[in-house]
């Protein structure tokens, strides 16, 4: 089976009708478990008039109340440390993690058991194997190994696959690059932003990564991994295929991944998750090809059962047949397209950071950027400024970039004028984990927002 393109051929290729039957069975058992063991879910199910016995088909899942990040935070704030969300004694946990806090909000705390961690790494196995990671690979994790759950699961997944794992923890970018070359690494795991930074640093060090052994760059942690221009830059710079994945601390692992066929989106791990896409305005299910909010139920994490969790992610689901790889799992076209709560309203126009980044990344002269939202001195008019750093050898491109980028951004945003500001080299922050490129400096009750 070592030559199988599928990590789990049975479930990844079964008829969709069977897949849905499997999801219903797991959903029922998970709801039974949550109702019996967590005060949080019992209370919410009772308030909604829902009982797990009512689940006769997956359509009945809509009877289950949704849960939100605020619900999780409130529960843990009212009953520190774990709230009334946990389904078993904390003594059964072997690991504690929390959200990255990159949005400036109170982090979520999560506990997982030995079994949970097997599952967390297993989801990364689905994605890693699908993108071509095999026992012969030498895998480098350009990741800080902290309380943020990040690539921990991927590390264990690669060990499970049998690859040689190199934990590139607390080291400089320069030292990491030296190791990547010295150890003849074939596969890199990092955020897309940091993979870009590694490439830029390599250029500065006189290293041509296209001549290295690296043939796969697997990214996660930011929506940018599925931005076509970003992917093109990474594939060009590394001379390797770039595959996107997406996960969340609330699940503990990834829920979607790009396969080696690179269909322009990411497969959902449907035998281990029940994913719905909802029109956030109407609450109705979105059809294939329509944008909506991801609602996720995880079948793997039972310590803190995650049932119909409103992720806030913007996605567009398309059928599995969109991809030629033969998997039965549907696809998020374009990966995670951003977050509903990332949207900024500027003079009546909706601005999504990922959409802005998609346009900026079309210009490969741009080294780093920041989206700065502010209000004029009279506290009346909202403005948006894109602060840009160009690559040191491309400073002469500034005038044509300013003209073209200004037009492209306005054209994609109902004519909204974007101010463009050229920044000195290395004046904007660089990131290893989740990049935070949006600053909203408008006066608000709570001060600065993200």
């Amino acid at each position, binding site marked *: 089976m070592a030559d199988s393109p599928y990590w*789990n051929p*049975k*479930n990844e290729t079964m008829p969709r009708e*069977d897949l849905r*039957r*499997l999801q219903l*069975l*797991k959903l029922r*058992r998970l709801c039974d*478990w949550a109702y019996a063991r967590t005060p949080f879910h019992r209370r919410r199910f009772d308030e909604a008039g829902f009982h797990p016995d009512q689940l006769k088909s997956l359509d009945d899942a809509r009877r289950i109340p949704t849960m939100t990040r605020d619900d999780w935070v409130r529960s843990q704030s009212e009953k520190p440390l774990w709230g009334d969300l946990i*389904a*078993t*004694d904390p*003594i*059964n946990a072997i690991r504690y993690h929390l959200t990255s806090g990159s949005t400036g909000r109170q982090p979520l705390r999560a506990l997982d*058991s*030995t*079994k949970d*961690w*097997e*599952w967390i790494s*297993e989801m990364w196995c689905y994605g890693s194997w699908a993108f071509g990671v095999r026992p012969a690979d030498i895998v480098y994790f350009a990741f800080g190994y902290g309380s943020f759950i990040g690539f921990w699961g991927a590390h264990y997944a690669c060990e499970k696959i049998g690859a040689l794992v190199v934990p590139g923890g607390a080291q400089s970018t320069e030292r990491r690059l030296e190791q990547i070359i010295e150890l003849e690494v074939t596969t890199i795991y990092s955020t897309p932003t940091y993979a870009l930074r590694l490439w830029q640093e390599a250029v500065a060090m006189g290293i041509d990564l296209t001549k290295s052994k690296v043939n796969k760059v697997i990214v996660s942690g930011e929506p940018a991994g599925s931005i076509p221009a970003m992917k093109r830059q990474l594939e060009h710079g590394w001379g390797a295929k770039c595959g996107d994945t997406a996960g969340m601390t609330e699940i503990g692992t990834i829920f979607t991944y790009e396969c080696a066929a690179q269909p322009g989106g990411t497969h959902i791990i449907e*035998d281990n998750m029940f994913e719905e896409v909802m029109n956030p305005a109407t609450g109705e299910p979105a059809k294939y090809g329509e944008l909506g909010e991801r609602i996720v139920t995880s*079948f*793997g994490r*039972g*310590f803190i059962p995650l049932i119909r969790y409103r992720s806030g992610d913007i996605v567009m689901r398309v059928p599995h047949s969109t991809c030629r790889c033969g998997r039965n799992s549907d696809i998020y076209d374009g990966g995670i397209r951003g977050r509903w709560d990332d949207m900024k309203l500027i003079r009546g126009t909706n601005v999504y950071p990922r959409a802005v980044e998609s346009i900026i990344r079309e210009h490969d002269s741009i080294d780093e950027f920041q989206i700065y939202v502010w209000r004029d001195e009279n506290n009346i008019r909202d403005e948006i400024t894109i602060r840009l750093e160009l690559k040191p050898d491309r400073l002469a491109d500034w005038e044509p970039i300013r003209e073209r980028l200004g037009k492209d951004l306005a054209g994609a945003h109902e004519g909204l004028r974007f101010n463009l500001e050229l920044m000195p080299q290395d004046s904007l922050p660089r990131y290893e984990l989740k990049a935070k490129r949006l600053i909203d400096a408008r006066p608000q009750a709570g001060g600065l927002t993200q």
Partner: protein
Amino acid sequence: MSNISNTATDLLGQSLTANEEQLLAAYRELKRLAAISDLPPCAARAVRKALACMWQAVNDLDLEFEQLYDLGV
């Protein structure tokens, strides 16, 4: 290979293969071992770690889907 009769089914009602029967039997044996309270720590933790791995196999192959927290797994 297994000499267990091929009469059991997976979660979707399909007959188990001989390999699946063996995996399920190994999983159940590990569960039995995990319930023993007087194993030495080295064995007790090894059994739990093995059971977690085997849980993943039976979950992947739709042979069983259940929680193991009450066994400390």
